[in-house]
């Protein structure tokens, strides 16, 4: 069992190799040939997806397998999350190419940094030891700090990156501190061995619970749940929209996986302790995220607060501590990434040359300018609000079911009431698009791959709702439910 077994990490090694290849290739490419970089990145994702899907024979038919002396795990949950990371990142790249070209920022750094971040995400998803968790986390974080400051001329971007970096480092510090205490209490870094040690020695250990608190703080920061959410609106607002698009989608899946690995695989015995903490974090996030989003006139900030509330909903999935609950959380995070990508895709679409369509008013009268794009945005908004038959409804439904199964009826009721509050600001976007007159008659134009990706993204939101069974089944079976 404790062998290197490097084959299991083939997707990670492939992404690492390609990130380096792109880094070097950029040195030899003229500026007008940068399209090749985009193609290379897309090829990376396609092959990474194929390698991940062909994983069965590497684990000899077992559900999961370990590598690198138990520090790395390959299991169905990890494979599904990685697969969706590739899919969503592929969509992100298509949107980002159009966006970066418009803003004259089409540089290879975006691709190398985001591929390294993806590598961190993959590591985090497959982490089975505290060290791997930390490595994956730092790789993701450092790459995204740099991405936020991607537009060197933007003061807001630099400020956001600085804020993100300082707060993020502090959170990493908290996490490390918690890890060290857990190591002290259990004598192991391996998550399986930690859980074995806890079963053996009992949960009545102050250092252990102390360590758990610090872990949860670190996790909350990475997820961006109240009261550790302060960085989200500023970073979403300050970063170039292509970067916001990236931050709001792929790393969320890693944050979910990290929470699952640490809390369930490692500290599952402490379920009673962390359940209370997560319930409070969830309710604060759902309440504050939805209320604060109403007051926003900037769509990036509005979506930032909406993210906070969605992360609160994802935490609901953790409460019962059952496979069904984790499956619900995983389904939510995948669905959220898809919706979020579509929402920021629309923001990119409406950005005229060099000016970001940041304000809600930029959506005015979209139905008259182009009814198909308006329909996509309307589907995204209704889906985020949790109105059936869009996919967001099924995600909300599953996590509310999880909250009810853990016996927290008050929490479920709070969650649904504030999802109605949240519906208000989503409806406001629909109102701007459908009921108001456009402020400009400028034609909405985008390259064909962008239009195809956006349409596909919109259809996914409807199609995954009507035919929701397959994705739900995949998420549920990932946890053996």
């Amino acid at each position: 069992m404790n062998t290197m077994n490097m084959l299991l990490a083939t997707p990670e090694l492939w992404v690492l190799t390609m990130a380096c290849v792109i880094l070097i290739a950029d040195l030899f490419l003229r500026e007008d040939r940068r399209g090749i970089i985009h193609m290379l990145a897309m090829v990376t994702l396609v092959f990474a997806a194929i390698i991940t899907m062909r994983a069965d024979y590497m684990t000899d038919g077992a559900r999961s397998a370990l590598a690198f002396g138990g520090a790395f795990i390959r299991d169905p949950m990890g494979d599904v999350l990685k697969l969706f990371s590739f899919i969503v990142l592929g969509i992100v790249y298509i949107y980002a190419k159009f966006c970066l070209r418009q803003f004259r920022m089409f540089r290879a750094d975006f691709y190398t940094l985001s591929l390294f971040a993806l590598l961190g995400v993959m590591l985090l998803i497959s982490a089975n030891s505290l060290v791997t968790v930390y490595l994956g986390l730092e790789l993701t974080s450092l790459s995204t700090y740099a991405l936020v400051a991607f537009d060197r001329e933007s003061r807001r971007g630099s400020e956001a990156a600085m804020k993100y970096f300082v707060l993020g480092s502090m959170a990493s510090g908290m996490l490390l501190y918690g890890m060290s205490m857990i190591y002290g209490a259990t004598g192991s870094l391996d998550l399986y061995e930690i859980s074995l040690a806890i079963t053996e020695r009992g949960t009545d250990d102050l250092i252990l619970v102390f360590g758990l608190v610090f872990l949860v703080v670190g996790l909350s920061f990475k997820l961006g749940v109240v009261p550790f959410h302060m960085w989200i609106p500023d970073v979403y607002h300050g970063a170039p929209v292509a970067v916001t698009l990236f931050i709001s989608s792929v790393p969320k899946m890693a944050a979910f996986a990290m929470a699952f690995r640490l809390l369930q695989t490692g500290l599952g015995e402490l379920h009673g302790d962390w359940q209370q903490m997560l319930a409070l974090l969830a309710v604060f996030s759902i309440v504050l995220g939805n209320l604060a989003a109403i007051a926003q006139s900037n769509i990036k900030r509005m979506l930032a607060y909406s993210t906070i509330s969605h992360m609160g909903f994802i935490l609901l999935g953790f409460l019962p501590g059952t496979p069904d609950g984790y499956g619900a959380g995983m389904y939510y995070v995948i669905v959220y990434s898809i919706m979020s990508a579509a929402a920021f895709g629309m923001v990119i679409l409406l950005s005229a040359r060099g000016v970001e369509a940041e304000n809600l008013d930029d959506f005015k009268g979209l139905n008259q300018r182009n009814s198909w794009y308006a329909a996509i945005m309307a589907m995204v908004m209704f889906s985020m609000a949790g109105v059936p038959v869009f996919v967001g409804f099924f995600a909300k439904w599953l996590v509310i079911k999880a909250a009810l199964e853990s016996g927290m009826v008050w929490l479920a009721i709070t969650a649904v009431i504030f999802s109605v509050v949240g519906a208000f600001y989503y409806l406001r976007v629909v109102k701007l698009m459908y009921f108001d007159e456009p402020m400009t008659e400028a034609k909405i134009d985008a390259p064909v791959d962008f239009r195809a990706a956006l349409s596909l993204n919109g259809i996914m939101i409807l199609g995954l709702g009507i035919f929701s069974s397959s994705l739900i089944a995949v998420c549920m079976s990932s946890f053996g439910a």
Partner: protein
Amino acid sequence: MLSNWPILSILIWLPILGGAVVIAAGAQRASMARLLALVISALTFVISIQLFTTFDTSTAAMQFTELHPWIPAFDIQYSLGVDGFSVPLILLTTFFGVLVVIAGWEVIQDKVHQYMAAFLIMEGLMVGVFCAMDALLFYVFFEAMLIPMFLVIGMWGGPQRVYATIKFFLYTFLGSVFMLIGLIYLYIQSGTWSILEWHQFPLSLEVQKWLFIGFLAAFSVKIPMWPVHTWLPDAHVEAPTGGSVILAAIMLKIGGYGFIRFSLPITPDASAALDWLIIGLSLIAVVYIGFVALVQQDMKKLIAYSSISHMGFVTLGLFLAFAIFQNTEGGRGAALGVEGAMVQMISHGFVSGALFLCVGVLYDRLHSRMIADYGGVANSMPWFASFAVLFFMANSGLPGTSGFVGEFMVILAAFQANFWYAFLAATTLILGAAYSLWLVKRVIFGEVTNKEVAKLEDINAREALVLGIIAVAVLLVGLWPEPLVNLMHSSVEQLLAHIQQPKFTGAGF
């Protein structure tokens, strides 16, 4: 011919997919969109007639059932079926589906394809509500229906449309999320989403009460009952004519249908324990809202309040049963109450739909809904006046019109329950007549005080066709209600037999 076809699925998906086709094909040519919408809605109506003729009235069992797995991981099924409660409402839906297309023919000139598609999609979703036998499927249709209505009010509505439509959406959304919690709770307890299995699932009285309140939150807003009715006048006033028609004629009925399908059979003991609440609120709606209707200056608002008052009869008729069981042997009157409520729903569908169409006719010409702006319309629009008088008479419950049958049955049943219930309910015969006929006097008859009114043109063939068809339906149900009552009789008997059995024996906890 159609007997082997999944007729319910066709009734749901034909309009929905048809709506998508109208959006795609009618974007360039409005006339194409209108024609396509008419063909699709007419076809749907014809198929629903087939449903009506092949429906077996002798049994209360679900018919035309369809069952396919939808989300097997949680036993959610695409499960459809109809009984005596659903069929009349489905017919009403498809009937008005055709009429709103015709009614919007020339009136809507802006984004015609989206208007027609919204109504077609809404029609399919509403039929879905009446067919769904799986609770989550029901909820999906129940909620999804809000989206096209939200857009219809907001895009083609009056000056305050944004306020009205957001209020409408959030109000109904808030109500239904409480029901969602109840549904999920029931699933966790019973392990199934099948509504029919839930009918048999034992529950303790306390749990039943909480579930009842959850259902009440959703359906009382939808129907709407006093005091959660305030979204309705706003939505009605601001909606375009077609939107008001569908809202009044069909969407409100979904609340009543919800009581029949969920509240009564799933939580019968809670319904029995809390029937005083529903009866009280219903009587307040009948009497108090009747008075409110009397003082309205705006015709659409008056009809909206009259709708709330009439829907009070529906909830009253449904929940009288428990008092009647205590007072009489066998509870013959209880069936009268429930059947009266159903007839009242159908009749109110026809009458309120027709009234909103009448106001629409006037509004299209003079662009005012204020009573004060009219007077003596009969002089310039004699044909219109005769239709309008008929519908307002039906609204006040004139014998011979459909409005009379339902109200009379409910009042008769109320006598079996309690004299004072009947007394208060019967005040509607006075109040309804007062606000309806006073409106007729002020708008239709009298001197022509406004020069604009003198220049009004009478209804054209299209408007006459729409109003004429509804007039026939109103008179038919009024003079010969038997086929309608027969249609639902077995289902009513079964429902009443079911709700007399206590459910909390051997409750899970």
